């Protein structure tokens, strides 16, 4: 097998690996036992207009007798704002948002560009190729600029620099290297459409060395992201949906009760040394 074929197979396997490892991570979080309630308001699914000011169903007298008002539309809108615009960072730390959003938006565009490239293997009218090229340029520009800005900020900001570990710098540098080798390859060496056609059909031959390096690094990044903290696209879902917005009460017949019973059927194998269960004594009745 030639180096070109090896790299082609590797990049395809790495793409598959990215999804498989991300799903494995999601599975791990999804199958943890039901946790204590840590709801934090506002919770966007709270209906009846309550989400707007941070209210909850607990504002109802005898709340357990009242039907829950759930606003899935508001919840979805809130999620989309966070996913598409990184709203919390925009609201609370605008300076960092410009860099972070540029990078994340660039990555979204690049993901779309990859899909469009795949389509181009089978279908490539001129206007489509032009459109895909524009998408690619925008994606590369946004993500590279964002990545550089984030790196500069991490290095130059006294506080960020203090808390950033070498591994965290490595994450940004790896991403930036993949972007720069890609940008150089597609701008100065060869056409991404030709490489995509060869790689996706496993017919790659004579790929330029810089393209091989780029594809190998891209594959490594695909496999590395789900194993690193860059997999926050998985974690964030659980942080919001399964922790901060999980305010469903443990009522008879509820799904919470079922999960609670499941957990009770699997008692812990480890225990704390200094914590003992205790019932109250009768000393209270003494004078």
């Amino acid at each position, binding site marked *: 097998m030639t180096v070109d074929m090896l790299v082609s197979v590797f990049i395809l396997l790495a793409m598959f690996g990215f999804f498989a490892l991300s799903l494995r991570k999601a599975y791990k979080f999804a199958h943890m036992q039901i946790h204590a*309630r840590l709801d934090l308001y506002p919770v966007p699914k709270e209906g009846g207009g309550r989400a707007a000011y941070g209210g909850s169903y607990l*504002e*109802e007298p005898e709340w357990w007798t009242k039907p829950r008002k759930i606003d899935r539309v508001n919840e979805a809108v809130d999620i989309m704002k966070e996913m598409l615009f990184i709203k919390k960072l925009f609201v609370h730390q605008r300076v960092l948002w410009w860099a972070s959003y540029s990078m994340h938006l660039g990555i979204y565009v690049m993901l779309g560009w990859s899909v469009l490239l795949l389509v181009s293997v089978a279908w490539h009218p001129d206007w489509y190729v032009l459109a895909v090229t524009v998408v690619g340029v925008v994606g590369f520009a946004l993500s590279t600029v964002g990545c550089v800005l984030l790196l500069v900020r991490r290095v130059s900001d006294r506080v960020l620099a203090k808390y950033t570990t070498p591994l965290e710098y490595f994450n940004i540098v790896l991403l930036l290297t993949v972007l720069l080798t890609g940008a150089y390859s597609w701008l100065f060496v060869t056409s991404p459409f030709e490489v995509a056609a060869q790689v996706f059909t496993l017919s790659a031959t004579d790929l330029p060395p810089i393209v091989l390096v780029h594809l190998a690094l891209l594959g490594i990044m695909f496999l590395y992201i789900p194993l690193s*903290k860059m997999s926050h696209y998985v974690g964030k879902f659980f942080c919001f949906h399964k922790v901060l917005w999980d305010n469903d009460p443990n009522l008879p017949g509820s799904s919470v009760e079922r999960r609670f*019973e499941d957990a009770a059927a699997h008692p812990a194998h480890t225990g704390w040394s200094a914590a003992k269960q205790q019932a*109250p004594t009768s000393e209270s*009745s003494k*004078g």
Partner: protein
Amino acid sequence: MAMEYKNVRTTDISRREGLLSALDDLAPLPAPYDKNGLEPAFKDPKPEWAETNCCSLDGFCAIDTMKRPETQEEEDELKVKFLKGLEKLFLDANNKYLQPLSLTMEYCAKCNTCSEACHVYKAANGDEIYRPIFRVDVLRKLYKKYFTRSGKLLGSLTGADIDLDWETIARLGESAYRCNLCRRCAQVCPMGLDNGMAAREIRKIFSMEMGLAPTPVHAKGTQLQLKTGSSTGLTRPALLDTLEFIEEDTYERTGRKIKFPLDKKGADVLLFHNAGEFMAWPENPAAFAILLDEAGVDWTLSTDVVGYDSVNYGIWYDDVQAKNVAMAQFEAARKLGVKRIVIGECGHAHKAAVVGADRMADSEERGVPVESFLPMMAEFVRNGRLKFDPSKNDFPVTLHDPCNIVRQMGIVEPQREILRKIAPQFREMTPHGVDNYCCGGGSGFAIMNSYNFGDFRTKVSGRMKFAQILNAFADEMENPDIVKYVCAPCSNCKGTIRDLLQAYKATARYNVQYGGIVELMVNGLASMDRPYFEFLEAE
């Protein structure tokens, strides 16, 4: 000197000498405290405290039970215990917090958005050790170093660069008690991570594995409550005497006859007070009695063990203690066969009973549904079961939002509905509602006075709240003829605000008063012949 404390690094936590913050650069207070000279000074710690305890974080000592080891063997034993506890945070022993803790440990981008949300960090004008990620990053680094493959293999490349010694452990434990667990930081985190929850997890290592917790929350808190019935030490006979006294005193002060219904089987409502109210603010349970009687509620108090004290300090530091107390409280309610438990003015008791206990036991084991008093009172106001003459409360009133009730339970509007109806000069603090600042007494600080810890509460953790109060009354503050009322519907918040007003002489000099919401309701009741507040009587 101040800059030195802003440049501290997490690795400095194991430094043998010196403080990591001397709190010598606090945020300025608004007028008139910008120049009236009434801010109290810190009391200097006694040198001998540092010989036996950890005072090397910032000169304060919260965990009075954590004694400095005298021999290397003792220090080694402490390290082993600490590491066992740290490991257990990530084992099934900690299943109830494993998912949220794992997420927070794994995904923090150190963007520091949380710092600006933290009232302690802001009060200390940015001293590093109060940054919400500081203590959690120390925990993360230690966990990586001792329990992850990447940390063991790559060491400091992954951030696993902190040495473990007595100073590290003790300072980390202390730093967990510089956070009010108000979780304002989690509210702004772009990843949805929860450094407040993680601070509590650190406290759990110390209590649940090492047996170390501040005396006021453990030995004189949950343990005393389980032993005598109340964390105040109030026994059943003493409770009965106290209630009798309150009935007589209320009649003398207001001409209103009340009789506390006790242990009434099958009552609609079992009212659960923080027992501190009976002792420190008897006008609060009396106000509840007046309101519930006037609204025609079938209610009762319990005199059973733990049945007359709603507090549950366990939720601040120890899951097992929290469950011990919560289950005893539900047991008292079940014995009476009441239809529901209603929690009075105590924020953490709200959270412990309604939200915390919700996943400690199933509904059958809990046996009785539980709710806040606020929606019930708001309903009485709305439907006219209670009638008011708002002119009786015609003085400036502002509302403190207890974090446990508001940000952590989403009970925001009922108290406002009440105040809009009964207090014509009600105005909000800034920020308010779910964005409020903690009073500074949250997570046990309100009752922690060992060594010099009270100073930390008064000058640091309560600083932003005091500033909010001053700003809310900016137009009237310097006129002592105008009564200004801080409404704090939570016992611990109320205690903290009392201490703030006292320490800064805000009541004596500027006539800033404080109390709960039910007292204000009773003062505004159309049926009351006399003012309910003593400070109004004096006028």
